[in-house]
């Protein structure tokens, strides 16, 4: 049901893919912006190529531009697909049954392919190969660089999956050979290799979850309190704390960008910056409305309250082109001061500054500092980051990628419920994943929720072939 973020993004991609499917190169060349939307992440399966030890050369003797390698087959006609569709029982890892191992790995490969949008990748690589062969390609070096980089990334993903498939088939062949020749040592070794592959495959499944555009970026997390006064502002502060400790647990750097405290307690709204690899890839799973049910400590009548907080996540694009260029002429700088001749005539300590960016109407105010100069500098920094966020959202939209900002989140889009009374439970309404220990979740133990959501969102999406 609810995997709105990703299904929409996937759908957008599918649409842009379909639009290009006829794929004459001219069309590919035309709108560079649209093409850049298709730039895949480098990080689909980053470790696979290194961790695969033996690479039989014969499967890749064909030129690398030929993306679709022939599917590996065993002597008796087994392929990865056929193994997956045989419906062999998958036993626990400890059981030494080659069919069980093989079936588990084949299922993983199927899942990984789905998460990587395999059909789309193959088609796209084919198109890019055609573009790469154009003789006039390097007349536009920037474009050529983009194309060849994307091509390289996609080829990396394809190769690494193909190698994994190849490995599986080889192990099965080895095992059969060992049995035919009654080589117990080889049989044990091959069985061990298969079990290793099975464990490896689980890791690859996870990595494939974070293969979306911008997934590897740092991000902003914004939390805004819903209606309901102090109780809901307190909840917003709890949610913000949850993300801060989650981010710290993951080893990310957290900085507070902006904080608007509530009158009595909590926050009306706050923004933090989370710096680190894949911060956006994980945090994007948290976009939406979070609901709390508890006995409010701010209610002298000890009644049960329900409050809401909205969470937005915005990627910080790596390249400087996303920084918004502010023109001085677009700014109106307001100083709160009385009229009159000013200068030596007046003594004032009023130093508050408000800067308005006229084209967007976005403004920033600062009055913490005692000099106008310093207040202006602080207000400019805030304004810059607000405009950057806007620019990021605009570029993301231009890239046909879906980014949600706070104003787009409808308060009806509830993603998770935290109940502290009358029972204790945290339940994700999108995946139905739940735990009975709200405290640990509120202390930042969010990874299970995030991974569950990411996998369900990608795996249910109709994007495979």
């Amino acid at each position, binding site marked *: 049901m609810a995997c709105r973020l990703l299904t929409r993004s996937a759908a957008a991609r599918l649409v842009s893919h379909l639009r290009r499917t006829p794929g004459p190169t001219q069309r590919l060349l035309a709108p560079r912006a649209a093409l850049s939307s298709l730039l895949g992440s480098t990080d689909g399966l980053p470790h696979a190529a290194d961790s695969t030890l033996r690479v039989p050369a014969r499967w890749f003797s064909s030129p690398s531009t030929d993306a679709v390698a022939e599917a590996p087959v065993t002597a008796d006609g087994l392929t990865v697909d056929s193994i997956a569709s045989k419906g062999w029982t998958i036993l626990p890892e400890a059981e030494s049954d080659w069919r069980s191992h093989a079936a588990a790995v084949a299922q993983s490969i199927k899942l990984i392919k789905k998460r990587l949008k395999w059909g789309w990748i193959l088609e796209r690589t084919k198109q890019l190969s055609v573009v790469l062969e154009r003789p006039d390609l390097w007349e536009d070096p920037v474009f050529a660089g983009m194309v060849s980089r994307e091509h390289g990334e996609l080829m990396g993903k394809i190769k690494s999956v193909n190698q994994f498939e190849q490995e599986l088939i080889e192990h099965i062949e080895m095992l059969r050979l060992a049995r035919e020749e009654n080589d117990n040592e080889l049989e044990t070794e091959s069985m061990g290799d298969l079990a290793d592959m099975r464990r490896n495959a689980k890791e690859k499944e996870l990595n494939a979850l974070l293969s979306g555009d911008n997934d590897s970026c740092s991000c902003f997390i914004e939390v805004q309190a819903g209606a309901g006064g102090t109780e809901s502002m307190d909840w917003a502060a709890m949610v913000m704390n949850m993300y801060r400790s989650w981010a710290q647990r993951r080893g990310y750097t957290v900085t507070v960008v902006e904080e608007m405290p509530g009158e009595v307690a909590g926050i009306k709204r706050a923004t933090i910056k989370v710096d680190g690899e894949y911060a956006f890839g994980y945090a994007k799973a948290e976009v939406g409305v979070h609901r709390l049910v508890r006995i409010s400590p701010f209610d002298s009548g000890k009644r049960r309250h329900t409050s809401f907080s909205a969470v937005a996540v915005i990627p910080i694009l790596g390249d400087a082109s996303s920084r918004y260029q502010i023109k001085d002429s677009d700014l109106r700088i307001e100083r709160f001061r009385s009229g009159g001749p000013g200068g*030596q005539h007046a*003594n*004032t300590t009023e130093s508050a500054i408000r800067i308005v960016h006229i084209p967007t109407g976005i403004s920033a105010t600062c009055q913490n500092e005692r000099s106008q100069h310093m207040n202006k500098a602080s207000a400019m920094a805030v304004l810059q980051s607000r405009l950057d966020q806007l620019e990021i959202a605009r570029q993301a939209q231009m890239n046909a990628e879906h980014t949600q900002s706070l104003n787009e989140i409808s308060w009806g889009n509830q993603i998770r419920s935290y109940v502290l009374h009358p029972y204790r439970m945290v339940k994700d309404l999108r995946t139905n994943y739940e735990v009975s220990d709200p405290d640990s979740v509120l202390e930042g133990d969010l990874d299970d929720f995030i991974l569950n959501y990411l996998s369900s969102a990608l795996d249910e999406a109709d994007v495979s072939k």
Partner: protein
Amino acid sequence: MAMLAFSSNAFLRPNPPGPHLRRLLLPKPLSSAAALTPPTPQADPTGGSNPDPDPTPLFLRPASHRVPAAALAAFRLRAAALVPPSAPHLRRHLRWLLADAAANDPASGSDPALLRASLDDLEALWLRHVRGRRPFQYVVGNEHWRDLVVAVREGVLIPRPETEAVVDIVKRVEGFEDGWWADLGTGSGAIAVAVARELGAAGRVFATDVSEVALEVARLNVQRYGVQDKVEIRHGSWFEPLEDVKGKLMGVISNPPYIPNVDLPGLQPEVGWHEPKLALDGGKDGLEHLLHLCEGLSSVLKPGGFFVFETNGDKQSEFLVDLISTKWSSFRNVEAVLDFADIKRFVTGYRR
């Protein structure tokens, strides 16, 4: 109220000395800042000639007073009770006064609090601010100006927010980093220090003032920001101390007294009653010193040199722009520059 009326009269009674007399007076070292300060309207327990027993700015005094948190809180309440609803800015001042007085973060709520003045002293300071309209900057002994905390005290003009722009104007001059600059009538030294912090290895600022008090404060500020090797402080009126660098200056900066003397009696009490008349009184039409500065410019500036003066605003600036570009042919690009309130506050130009 009667006191107030009396004091305004008292301020008017001694006629301001005529321009000629003033100019004769200027180069002489002044024995006391108070001679130039209009009498404070209220009886001052410490005596008018010595308005502050300890001239060290509050924020630089040693933190030697342990005050129980409860007593500090009581003081805060007492002081806040003196703030009339018509003067909400005093709440901000009280917060800043306590911030400057505290040696540790006031928010930490440590008990006892470590203060730079006794509660009695703070109370006296606060009363003189609220009742005597002594400028807040003199009370705490500083003004936050640009990114600096400039020490000030009675006898020195409090740097104005408008003047912050002078430094930005200087920074726009090509190659300013390595030039020699003069800040004439430096006062607290705010401009000189701020410009010096932007200069390169070869850059220098000659900061002159006729007032000994001003030089003392300027020296303190230069030291606090560690720009002694960039700023040379010289005693004397306008160009007088600059004989040896004539024709070598890349730029001349000045925020001279420019208030027309007829406007002096109507000034805001914080300014008229407390700030040095020497730094405010521009004589007839407020132009006396500005004209003197314009006349001396071409002899001290090197060819291509730059000047920026702060003025009383629109009419004065327009007059000066017109005068400089028509009377002398030796200047180019003479223009009036707006301040943040869109008043033509500055006059700038280049020597040919």
